[in-house]
């Protein structure tokens, strides 16, 4: 039983991290119909920026803020020069958007490689020095608590923002029916821009947390892209709640799979379950059924 509780806790902490980047991915998709696979690159770069700021005298708060700002800026750049560009010449959805994202992801990953080499950088954090708490027989590391707390706050904030604020409602209007939103006077271009910047900033936070959990390594960019994509699809594209539940289920499945079967099979197990799930429910957990 202890093991399962431990697995449950581990899953929760990591799920929180991935829920952040998944929510970012999902919201971007919902508002702009772009498959923001490049978010993996943003997550990666943010980690590096955070780490190097920290080691170059920025101080914790400074490093965090700087990394998040850079992430947001990256989102703005990508939207302006890639995605808005794409929209000029063809309908919004489609493979082209996803492929362009993939191309951007590869550029970002290899830029990181160029700038910071392929050597894994272990991010020594102050958290390492604090011993974990033991709660009901479960090892609860300080980092996991912080991760959960930060992610939870941000996701709830995102959710409330989308539901209650004027901009949030405008975003949902654009998400539901872009042409309609234009007609009612919403500046859809600005909303899309805002969405990209905001969600990229969120991804930036996820990147900082990821650096603390997984260290820094350019090849992780692909993981940081595929996880949100997969989870978003299973949770339902566009749904923040789906991102959270989906991230949790994925982590849980992955950890259970790793525990029940060999470590190498955890991915297999997760994907097979997800595959079967999608076959039965193509729109994901909380996704909208397309007519």
């Amino acid at each position, binding site marked *: 039983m202890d093991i399962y509780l431990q697995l449950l806790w581990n899953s929760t902490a990591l799920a929180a991290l991935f829920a952040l980047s998944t929510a970012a991915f999902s919201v971007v*998709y919902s508002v702009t119909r772009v*498959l923001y696979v490049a978010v993996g690159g943003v997550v990666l770069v943010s980690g590096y920026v955070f780490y190097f700021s920290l080691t170059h005298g920025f101080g914790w708060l400074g490093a965090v803020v700087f990394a998040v700002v850079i992430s947001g800026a990256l989102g703005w750049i990508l939207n302006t020069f*890639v995605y808005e*560009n*794409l929209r000029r*010449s*063809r*309908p919004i*959805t*489609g*493979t*082209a958007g*996803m*492929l*362009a994202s*993939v*191309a*951007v992801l*590869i*550029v970002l*990953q*290899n*830029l990181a*490689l*160029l700038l910071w*080499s*392929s050597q894994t950088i272990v991010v020594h954090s102050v958290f390492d020095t604090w011993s974990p708490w033991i709660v009901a027989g479960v090892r609860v590391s300080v980092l996991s608590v912080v991760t959960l707390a930060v992610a939870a706050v941000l996701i709830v904030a995102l959710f409330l923002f989308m539901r209650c604020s004027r901009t949030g409602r405008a975003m949902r209007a654009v998400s539901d029916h872009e042409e309609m939103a234009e007609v009612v006077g919403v500046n859809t271009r600005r909303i899309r821009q805002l969405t990209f910047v905001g969600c990229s900033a969120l991804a930036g936070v996820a990147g900082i947390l990821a650096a603390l959990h997984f260290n820094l390594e350019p090849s992780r960019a*692909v993981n940081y892209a*595929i996880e949100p*994509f*997969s989870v978003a*699809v299973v949770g339902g*594209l566009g749904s923040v709640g789906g991102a959270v539940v989906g991230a949790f289920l994925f982590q849980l499945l992955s950890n259970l799979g790793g525990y029940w079967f*060999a470590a*190498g*099979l955890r*991915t*297999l197990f997760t*994907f*097979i379950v*997800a*595959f079967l799930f*999608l*076959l039965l429910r*193509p*729109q*994901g957990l909380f996704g909208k059924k*397309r007519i």
Partner: protein
Amino acid sequence: MEAFLIYFLTLGAIFSIGTMGYNVSAGYAGFFTLAHAGIVAVGAYTYALLTLKLDVPFGLAIIAAMVFSALVSALLSFASKKIRGDAFAILTLWFGFVVVTVLLNWRDLTRGALGLPGIPHPALFNDKVLLFLFCVIVMILSYVVLERIGSSPFGRALGAVRDDETAALALGKDVVRLRVSSAAISGAFAGLSGALLAVFLGFIDPNLFGIPLLVQFIGYMVIGGLGRMEASIAGTFLMLGVREGVRFLPFEPELVGALREIIFAAILGLVILYRPKGIMGKVELE
């Protein structure tokens, strides 16, 4: 230098076959999957295992690789019946992962990450030039067959499904059957490419067939242009040339690797944005 040229041209021919197969699915039928590298892996490992473990003769092993790859690809396309668009993309991507994961973990069969060395091939191909000629001939034959298919009534029906599935249905076209057939054809040539790769390299391991290979094929196909087989050959040789060419730049190896990927991805991105038909494609990338 000459050895390098032979190496380059042979690899180009082998990849071209795979790119053409990919183009059948994405360009002819408008059915974009991300499982292509996985299907190539299926072909490569089928050939390798049959020849290594069961002493199956060359020709038979190649055909078996094609058939098995075609089957796997067709089965995967069945899932598209219920799942469309973005969910389907991720599904096919997962499939590619599943293939690599299975290959990595089924150590009894595949030796996992250690890979399969010493893959047999006809003694004839010890001569690199003869192997090159063989691959080029196979490439040309593949081109002829696939081009013919493209301009046949079947190919035309695929185009209809690609351009407007609803209208195709209204004309009485069995869209599901057409899609599955195109997936089978695509898979067969992906498998052929994989098998020839196994022959050419003499050694394969699961990590050859992951995302990097997928992105390569996507690049070759999209930059060449969708919907035309010549475009796939041109795109493959051109971009493979760019990739190999970058190697000769005067930078350290690690830098060169990253530079190569950046240049490749940048060209792909620019083509997607500004030239959706690629170099000489017939159909725009949606």
